């Protein structure tokens, strides 16, 4: 069983790698500049904030919930950072407050879902609108655009001979940290347990309510971190920040092989999916395809990924059933043989 799961995981991620190579070849045919070291390193930079939100959402989806309010949380934290910074405080103080606000908004989602037993779908649909409105009520004009370079470097700076984007390092570093949390700690295993079966998790003594609240907190926190990169990359703090990025965030998680019904998924898959989406959008831009038409492709990718996942799982389940049946038959033959031997 474990071997089958490992093989499947390997397959899903190798499919992603193959897709990345295939799309890469297509992009190369569109522009000879595509396959240069600089372009490859910089490819994902505009989508790092999407990737960071996807990493947070991964925890929520593995716990068998959904959080579609992440982009709105990002907007609130971005506006809060801008407004506090404008009063003349240090940018790092403002950023800390923004991160705390984002985490608090995530935990509020978690409180409604876990403590009050409300469906995460309806709750985060509501907060998707409420938080976005809140961001506009805090500040609806032109955003602050005078952030110090030391801070905006998070989103737009480069290191190591001006070649490696800081945002990429932030993304990879965060992914390693969250990967450790998810795959190597007890808390991480709790999340899988809660996502596989909430009842079973409760009976085995896992603090289900706290775990479910925590995943929403992580999702909010990551939206806050994504807000830093967003401010850095776009250089301004507007309330319409990240509007329309939900499709990419959800697609990255699902395309990354996270089971939409909870209980399985890995950080590596999501990271690969983020790069695939970035590459695909990059290629479509090279091909002069407009943003809303690109969404058709990404939307199909989202639906196709779930359909493929469901198909693989169905095949796997039927394979497992057949193997079980075969084993049972063998067992029957063996016991019959033994019985005959005795008689």
């Amino acid at each position, binding site marked *: 069983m474990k071997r089958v799961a490992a093989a499947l995981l390997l397959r899903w991620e190798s499919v992603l790698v193959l897709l990345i190579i295939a799309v890469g070849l297509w992009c190369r045919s569109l522009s000879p500049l595509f396959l240069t070291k600089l372009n490859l390193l910089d490819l994902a930079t505009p989508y790092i904030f999407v990737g960071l939100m996807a990493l947070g959402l991964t925890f929520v989806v593995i716990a068998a919930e959904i959080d579609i309010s992440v982009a709105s949380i990002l907007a609130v934290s971005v506006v809060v950072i801008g407004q506090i910074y404008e009063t003349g405080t240090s940018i790092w103080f403002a950023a800390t407050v923004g991160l705390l606000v984002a985490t608090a908004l995530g935990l509020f989602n978690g409180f409604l879902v876990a403590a009050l037993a409300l469906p995460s779908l309806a709750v985060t649909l509501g907060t998707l609108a409420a938080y976005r409105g809140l961001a*506009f009520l805090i500040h609806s004009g032109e955003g602050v655009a005078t952030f110090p370079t030391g801070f905006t470097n998070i989103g737009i700076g480069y290191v190591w001979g001006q070649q490696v984007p800081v945002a990429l390092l932030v993304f990879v570093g965060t992914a390693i940290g969250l990967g450790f949390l998810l795959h190597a700690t007890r808390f991480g295993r709790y999340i899988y347990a809660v996502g596989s079966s909430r009842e079973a998790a409760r009976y085995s003594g896992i603090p289900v309510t706290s775990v479910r609240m925590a995943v929403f907190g992580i999702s909010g926190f990551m939206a806050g971190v994504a807000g830093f990169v967003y401010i850095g990359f776009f250089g301004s703090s507007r309330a319409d920040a990240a509007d329309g990025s939900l499709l990419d965030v959800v697609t990255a998680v699902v395309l990354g092989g996270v089971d939409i019904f909870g209980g399985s998924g890995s950080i590596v898959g999501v990271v690969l999916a983020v790069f695939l989406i970035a590459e695909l959008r990059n290629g479509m831009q090279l091909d002069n395809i407009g943003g809303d038409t690109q969404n058709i492709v990404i939307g199909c990718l989202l639906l196709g990924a779930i359909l493929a996942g469901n198909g693989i799982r169905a095949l796997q389940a039927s394979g497992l059933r057949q193997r079980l049946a075969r084993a049972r038959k063998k067992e029957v033959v063996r016991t019959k043989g033994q019985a005959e031997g005795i008689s």
Partner: protein
Amino acid sequence: MNLGSRMVGANTLAQAAFRLREAGIFIALAVAVLFFWARADNFMTVSNWQNIATDVAIVAVLAVGQTMVVLTRNIDLSVGSIVGLTAYISSDTLAKHQGLPLGAVVLIAVAIGLGLGLVNGLLVTVGRIPAIIATIGTLAIYRGLLFEITNGKNVLAFQLPERFLDLAAKKPLGLPTLAWIALVVGVIGAAFLRWSPWGRDFYAVGSNPDAARFAGIPVGRRVMSAFMISGGLAGLAGFMFAARFASVDAVAGTNLEFDAVTAVVIGGVNVFGGSGTVLGAVLGAVLVATIQDGFTLLKLSEFWKIFFNGTAIVVAVTIDALVTQRLQEALRRRRRAEIVAAREQAGATAREREVPT
């Protein structure tokens, strides 16, 4: 006898809660009306209420469709994009074929909506994709298709025949034609859910899909039909949208799904599926449209509307869930007390019997 009285007890308790729910909407509506009446000069005028009625009409038609979907424990977030797509196609068709009867245009719009709803339904039932993810995907796909079709063009009011724009402008018996259409849709929808076996199945599917399956209800087909109804009504709403706003472009109908979901949730349709009425959803639509109209008159920004929609969803869902939990707890407690009483009675009769022997 005992069983009967228990059932009656449970029913009256649930009915009382339900009546309270609708009273709540009326009270909220009354508060909103009084507030805007006091604050905005031209709120309490006939022409403003006719304005509100045309807005209600579009949201209400969407809300009737959304009610069907939410009853089956699903959600349809793609309706805003379906409205945009069918609004553009309706007005574009009329601009190119001025003589086409409106009935034919309605048929085209509804047919397209049904088709798009069918896609949603297939993804959810056959593809086993959770409705929220499936319709987030089709929301983007349908909107992308609209951008492809419009190719940056838009249809303007002067290109459209007068009789089409009259649907919003003419007011037979004081009510805009669009509102009459919505009223008919609401009555048919309510009758369908109240009396037709098909409609009753929606409640069964939403209350407990497994039990519904064991009871022989074709769950997949029912869910699919709910999505098709929602899509078809979104197509009709798109036609109405084009008549109301006259000029239609590629972003038409964006975020309308929030109005529909807010109306349904405020109207007391349970997001867990299985309970709710068309009347509630339509009342919810009236409340949503009235408040949005008031915001416009008070010159409050668009963002107050977004904020209101989101907050209303969260508050309504929270209150409903807490009330339901309390109600279930009360029913359970009552039932436990009755069982204890029945046991004691049974024990007493048993002892009485034992004495003579």
